């Protein structure tokens, strides 16, 4: 087994935070608290003197949402975030005072710009730009602020697959599985998703759970997901899957499941719940109870935001057909499963896992490359999507309840 092999590189330097976590980026988050404030937030970020590390996130709804509140609290106090500017129209339902208090309590610089009080669009944009430029004139976002020693095993690494095809489950997803095996064996932390795409894998996952109670929780949560997606009218197996060589529902799920590797599963978390300890975790994205808000996640970026809110410093994104997205807050590493897609879209990709199909390298070789790249990205090297300016962010209405002790047996 290579699972216990040492992780690459030595000690890195990251950005220290008051909660003990360490960031690998020092983003200034400009946060709109209702769609009506979004243009002002976009203009603040775009007009700063150095807009690269200024990311716009936010929530479009006017009605209060405990889920969105929790998500934005987690994201604004994420270790990759160094300072936060809240942009409020003034009359929306979002609890901006609470969010500002949470950010301030974390020791980060925070300001709240209320458009209706500041004097409209132009005045708020000017005030926001001045504040962002002010915090960045301090140490925010400078290499000198990287003072906290970290190793790869100190990072939380998330994974997602999107734009999958017949090659995803053969190349890029097993590569991520091997990366996770090595990370977790070395004391690292990894998060995979999502219950709805793991239907058919629940017994196998349960057998990997560190306790029987956790195994039973995993089975129950996948059954919940099956019911939820059925209620959404979401088909489970399309003709195109069979054309691509997938024969059964469980085989289709298996393709996504291989991202989780082969090691013990230590727990289950839900969106906005911090991964509490090192190990391998399943992110259950499907809400409890009867479906209320529509699909659990409307697209890949909604799920990436949840992985980041759980603490992911970096997200490994496997794609066969060729997704181009990145994310606000945390770097996204694009691992391309299909060699033809890679040749067509190489500028958008970080890793060519499709070469496994052409016999040019094996799964372990590409996994080693991903670990080396993770080390460099943690040290500041931009990913392909970062270099192209991708900072997508999606947050919609949803409900989410944190899991209890039966889902987190390693936490005392």
């Amino acid at each position, binding site marked *: 087994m290579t699972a216990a092999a040492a992780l690459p590189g030595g000690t890195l330097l990251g950005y220290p935070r008051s909660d003990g976590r360490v960031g690998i980026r020092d983003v200034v988050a400009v946060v709109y608290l209702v769609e009506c404030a979004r243009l002002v937030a976009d203009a603040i970020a775009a007009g700063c003197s150095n807009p690269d590390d200024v990311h716009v996130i936010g929530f479009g709804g006017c009605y209060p949402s405990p889920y969105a509140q929790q998500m934005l609290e987690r994201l604004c106090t994420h270790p990759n975030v160094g300072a936060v500017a809240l942009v409020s129209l003034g009359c929306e339902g979002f609890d901006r005072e609470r969010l500002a208090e949470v950010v301030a309590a974390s020791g980060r610089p925070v300001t709240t710009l209320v458009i209706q009080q500041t004097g409209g669009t132009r005045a708020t944009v000017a005030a926001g730009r001045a504040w962002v430029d002010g915090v960045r004139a301090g140490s925010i976002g400078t290499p000198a602020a990287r003072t906290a020693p970290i190793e790869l095993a100190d990072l939380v690494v998330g994974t997602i697959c999107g734009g999958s095809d017949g*090659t995803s489950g053969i190349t890029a997803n097993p590569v991520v599985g091997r990366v996770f095996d090595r990370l977790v064996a070395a004391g690292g932390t990894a998060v995979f998703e999502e219950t709805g795409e793991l239907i058919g894998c629940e017994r196998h996952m349960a057998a990997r759970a560190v306790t029987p109670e956790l195994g039973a929780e995993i089975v129950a949560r996948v059954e919940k997901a*099956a019911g939820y997606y059925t209620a959404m009218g979401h088909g489970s197996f399309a003709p195109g899957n069979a054309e691509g*060589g997938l*024969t059964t529902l469980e085989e289709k799920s*298996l393709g996504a499941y291989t991202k989780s590797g082969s090691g013990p599963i230590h727990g289950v978390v839900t969106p906005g719940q911090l991964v509490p300890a090192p190990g391998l975790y399943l992110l259950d994205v499907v809400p409890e109870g009867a479906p209320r808000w529509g699909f659990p996640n409307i697209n890949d970026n909604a799920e990436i935001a949840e992985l980041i809110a759980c603490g992911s410093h970096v997200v490994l994104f496997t794609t066969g057909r060729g997704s181009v997205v990145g994310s606000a807050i945390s770097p996204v590493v694009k691992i391309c499963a299909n060699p033809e897609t890679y040749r067509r879209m190489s500028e958008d990709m970080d890793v060519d896992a499709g070469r496994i*199909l052409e016999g040019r390298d094996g799964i372990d070789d590409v996994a080693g490359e991903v670990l080396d790249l993770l080390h460099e990205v943690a040290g500041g090297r931009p990913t392909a999507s970062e270099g192209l300016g991708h900072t997508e962010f999606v947050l919609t209405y949803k409900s989410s309840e944190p899991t209890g002790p039966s889902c987190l047996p390693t936490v005392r």
Partner: protein
Amino acid sequence: MSGTTSPATLIRLAEGDGVLVAAQDLAPGPHRTSAGGTVLVRERVALGHKVAARDLAMGERVVRAGMSIGSATRVILAGEWVHTHNLASDYIATFAHRGGER
């Protein structure tokens, strides 16, 4: 560690797997596997489709990447294409029933 000497056209995802995955469109004939052996492929098989790594009994659980992906609905000989004509889900029936209850 995996070998990189000669391109394998059949990928074995995990030790003990009953099926191999075609790394490209395959013609009938001998094909190298990523595990180091050779399998005589009996028919044309497309990229991403599966080939039996060894003889599989009727009713045998077919394992890919260490996990069952269903059961053989008839005897499958080594090198045969494995797809919906000889492999069926052990799960879809349960899933459909569960969905129907709601």
